């Protein structure tokens, strides 16, 4: 999920990466409030929600040599609306209903109603996620300790 920046050269890709990123960070309850609207369309499951594993890799300090952190469970789903728009989702965890709703949201967001869905769904979620992230960072920052070395007395 961090490798997306290399592909964001095209604006429509960047926009889709943004909303897929927001959807991937949602909790199930966030999408459940929109469930009736999301399901209010004819659609078929191209790939029914399925649970699998993916390897998470990291770099020490963000720039060191890559190492394998471990495996995590992911759930993915692909839906297609009656008009041919195809929505994809990849979510951490094992919640199939959540993955289906996220895929539906991706499909709806590619259509004529994009502005509506951005306003109703993505932007409030993005703001809430940004707020909770900055709250988390503030809490963490409050515990930060700056160590400094006193001049050592030599006598």
């Amino acid at each position: 999920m961090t490798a997306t920046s290399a592909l964001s050269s095209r604006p429509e890709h960047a926009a889709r990466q943004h909303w897929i990123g927001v959807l991937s960070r949602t909790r199930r309850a966030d999408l459940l409030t929109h469930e009736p609207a999301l399901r209010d369309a004819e659609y078929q499951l191209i790939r029914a929600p399925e649970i699998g594993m993916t390897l998470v890799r990291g770099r020490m300090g963000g720039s060191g040599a890559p190492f394998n952190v471990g495996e995590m469970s992911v759930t993915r789903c692909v839906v297609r609306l009656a008009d041919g728009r195809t929505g994809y989702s990849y979510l951490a965890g094992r919640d199939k209903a959540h993955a289906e709703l996220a895929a539906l949201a991706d499909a709806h967001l590619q259509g004529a109603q994009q502005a509506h869905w951005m306003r109703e769904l993505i932007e409030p979620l993005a703001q809430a996620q940004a707020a909770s992230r900055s709250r988390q960072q503030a809490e963490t920052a409050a515990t930060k300790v700056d160590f400094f070395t006193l001049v050592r007395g030599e006598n």
Partner: protein
Amino acid sequence: MSTTSVSATAASAHLLQPAFADPVLDAQRSFRAALKALAGPGIAQSLLSAQIPPHLEGLASASHALCLALLDIDTPLWLAPKFDTQAIRANLTFHCGCPIVSDRQNARFALLDDSQLHDLSGFDLGNDRYPDQSCTLLIQLPSLQGGRQVAFQGPGIETKNHVSLPLQEAFWEERESRNDFPRGIDVFFLAGSELMGLPRSTQVAFKPVLSKGGA
């Protein structure tokens, strides 16, 4: 699937359709049928209608089921021109993740129709150390009957299995010329929801009157 392939497949996304209703069990049932077909050469195996994937234009249901069961990211696939359609490419790439190659030598599986059977050159026959690395042919036919009768003999067959696959003489000659045990090619014949196996270990005997030394 990585982000790269999502954007690569976006153009063909409208061609995608669902595959097996139960991806795990249906693939296992199809694999089991393929196993039985190779273990008993010449005996047709049928796939149950419940385990057959939705119709994909150009593919018989047995061909489609076997592709979904056998192909994955490690099995490059070669497509005969008849099957090289956008819909087949898009769906097999999406559901199996298999690379589709244009060079026969690199293929682990090949999907052929009956117009290709006079020339089986280029397919990997494996090597003496790893005969299992050969290319397996999936041959889609209009029917598993209606051709000249031949007798299969060999491992998995008690005496003889008589089959009358609608195949030209050239196919048997091609197969014979590439059979250098343990190297060789294994074949599945597919028609409708039925399949029949022809492993490299099977000897094919023609009726004595018409014998051309095929055995």
